[in-house]
């Protein structure tokens, strides 16, 4: 027996690599594992708090579709993040006073035929800056001067802010001689991106290279940090944004580790309990079997979702508790499967022989059942992971789960509450659900392949 398992292990892997679907599963699983590591390493540990904090997402477009729909023939404005980090310092002497001037510049290319949603400038520095001058040079020459008086580090100046509307008014006055006040955000954006016509608003933005130079003037030396200039388009990244400007792809990435963790733990706990319980039940037989089947039925009859809802009212859930409760309610499914394996092993001649020799039942169970059941355990643990993920995400969808955890179900819940399907924000609905399905595929492919390989072994003598 032991020699068989020793021989069996390498060939299981070998056979797995022979199967095309298992290989596909392994490839997808590696991608998921890579993304999980990337998620854990790259996202800050307080991401779940940042996610809830509206302030953190002001530089992102609202309800924006993914950027790539451009290629499908839907013209959109991309979101461009420009950073100003290479600051050069110059000292200017004016009479008795010495001024420090820090300057940095950047350029970007604009080719979209659609105006962006917003424009935001976020200077970052330590020390006292007296003024910041931002010079915005459009592709065909004319430039706009934006001056920020008494600038504050970390403050985001947006197109609607006085800073930008004043600059746009001044620019229009310089160019046309007309003084226009109370510019809307749209008009400010057209002043910065459009060709200046008599009615200010033009139909399309100028394409070409825009140049932005920022000069910070201070009476005392300061430290300049990476400052941001963001052209907030009406499309964002791979998967767009939600109604609180949050990028969906970031949320999905943040939800990946906990989904896999919950899925795996739920599956392994439920499968181990179920297999041992069901295997024993089938092996013991008779009245004990009847009683154990009855116990399994009792648990099977408890509806997982309502039960966890009520539990969440009795105590605050954390990942561990959620896993334990889901697993505690889902093992009977595996017990039913394992019982049939137990029954089939029981009828084998070597079991009868051991029994006849007076070997105690637990030793028979350990030497003949456990090895056969362990193969089944591996297969069903892998196959059970998607179920665990699905249950956890379903609970998150109705607002049940560990607090402050970013989950795909939670993102879908906000999509539902904000009627994303009605407003046509398909990216907000499609991608989180696709993640749930996608995360299941490798486990199903691998689980089936393992099951197919071990199936003859389980029934073999």
């Amino acid at each position: 027996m032991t020699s068989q398992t020793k021989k069996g292990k390498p060939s299981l892997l070998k056979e797995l690599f022979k199967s095309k679907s298992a290989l596909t599963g392994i490839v997808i699983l590696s991608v998921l594992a890579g993304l999980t590591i990337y998620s854990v390493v790259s996202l800050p540990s307080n991401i779940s708090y940042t996610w809830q904090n509206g302030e953190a997402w002001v530089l992102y477009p609202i309800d924006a579709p993914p950027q790539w729909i451009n290629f499908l023939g839907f013209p959109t404005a991309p979101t461009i993040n420009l950073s100003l980090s290479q600051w050069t310092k110059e000292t200017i002497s004016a009479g008795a006073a010495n001024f420090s001037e820090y300057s940095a510049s950047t350029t970007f290319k604009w080719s979209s035929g659609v105006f962006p949603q917003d424009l935001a400038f976020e200077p970052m520095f330590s020390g006292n800056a007296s003024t910041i001058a931002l010079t915005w040079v459009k592709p065909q020459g004319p430039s706009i001067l934006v001056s920020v008086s008494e600038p504050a580090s970390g403050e985001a100046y947006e197109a609607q802010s006085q800073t930008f509307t004043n600059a746009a008014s001044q620019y229009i006055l310089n160019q046309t001689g007309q003084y226009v006040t109370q510019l809307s955000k749209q008009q400010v954006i057209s002043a910065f991106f459009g060709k200046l016509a008599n009615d200010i608003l033009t139909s399309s933005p100028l394409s070409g290279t825009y140049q932005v130079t920022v000069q910070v003037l201070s009476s005392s030396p300061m430290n300049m940090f990476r400052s941001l200039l963001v052209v907030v388009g009406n499309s964002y990244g791979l998967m767009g944004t939600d109604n609180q400007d949050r990028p969906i792809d970031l949320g999905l990435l943040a939800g990946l580790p906990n989904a896999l963790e919950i899925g795996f733990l739920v599956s392994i706990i439920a499968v181990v309990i179920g297999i041992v319980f069901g295997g024993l039940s089938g092996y013991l037989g008779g009245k004990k079997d009847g009683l154990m089947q009855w116990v399994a039925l009792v648990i099977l009859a408890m509806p997982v979702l309502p039960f966890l809802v009520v539990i969440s009212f009795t105590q605050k859930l954390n990942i561990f508790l959620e896993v334990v409760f889901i697993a505690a309610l889902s093992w009977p499914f595996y017990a039913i499967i394992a019982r049939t394996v137990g029954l089939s092993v029981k009828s084998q001649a070597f079991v009868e022989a051991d029994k006849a020799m007076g070997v105690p039942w637990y030793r028979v169970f350990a030497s003949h059942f456990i090895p056969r059941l362990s193969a089944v355990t591996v297969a069903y643990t892998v196959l059970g992971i998607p179920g665990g993920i699905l249950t956890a995400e379903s609970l998150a969808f109705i607002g049940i789960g560990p607090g402050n955890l970013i989950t795909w179900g939670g993102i879908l819940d906000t999509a539902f509450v904000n009627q994303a399907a009605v407003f046509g924000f398909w990216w907000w609905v499609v991608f989180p659900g696709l993640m749930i399905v996608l995360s299941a595929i490798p486990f199903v492919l691998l689980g089936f392949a393992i099951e197919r390989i071990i199936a003859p072994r389980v029934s073999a003598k």
Partner: protein
Amino acid sequence: MWMGFGRFVVTKAISYFLVLLATVSILYLATYNVIQKVVTSSAAALGVEYRQNLLKTSGAHLTTQQIQVLVTTFQQSYLAQFGFNQPLPIKFSIQIYKMLTLNFGQAYTIIWNGSKSVNVIIAGYLPNTILLFTTATLILIAIGTLIGLLAAKSAGTSWDRIVPIIAVVHSSLPAWWLAFLLIAGLGYDLNLLPTQGMMSVPPPTGALAVDLNVGEHMILPILSLLIVGLGGFAYVVRSLVISTMGEDFVLTARARGLPESRILFKHIFRTASPAITTQAILAITGSFGGALLTEIVFNWPGIGLLTYNAIFANDLPVVVGIVFVTTIILLVGLFIGELVYGLLDPRIRVGSD
């Protein structure tokens, strides 16, 4: 011949009643603290109502103190009904009995037809869930069995290749997410089918028109449940049928020259049907949770939507009531499944083991 079945029904009924007792006891112990909170808050709410009634009817004759005494006595007697003045074991049995007889106290905020009584609220929503879920399940079992049988007949390699796809759909596709997609695709964009609630606003007149209207509202919810559940169930039926196909009596029937379809439906299906029933029972328990969430997305006024509203409103008594009622409903469904199993399995029907 039916003697055996009668005995089967009785033993199953006893066994299921014991299961019910055990499940409800476990639920009760798991939610003990919550239930005490629900009962005391219900007593408080009913006390307020009672005081207002007293003031309205006999406010002139009674002093405030007398009213206070009456209200306190009233509240005490309500708490006594739930065994609050009894030793713990008796309190347990009284409260478990209350749960079994669907006595869940008063809701905090949710009202149905003017009543705040939890059992009235649940009774208002439950029929809609039963209507939707039973219809979906029956359709799933019927179509799934038929597809499974036909697929087994033409057993080849093509089916084996789509098994992983079926498994992915079955184990990971959330019916409620599919509901979103169906709403976005068929509901709003194409405007083919109603996507919200169970009746149009304003509702049509005439009984037949109402029934048709409700039926129309059921199409998309049922469709999303079918897409998720059908493939998996059909696959199980197919495997069961294939394993039966190799048996001797099938060969005998073939040797007798019976037509293939007759063998398939009369012989193989009859033999495999008890096992199919077991799988159907498992399918029912497995898809129940998904069905509840699907109600939410379609705004179908059933237990699932009620759960969502209760979570949103923090309405503890309603949540407690729902978990007990759904458990009981699920057990009734399983029991009916067992009875069907008994009807189909000739060994049980004639009473031999």
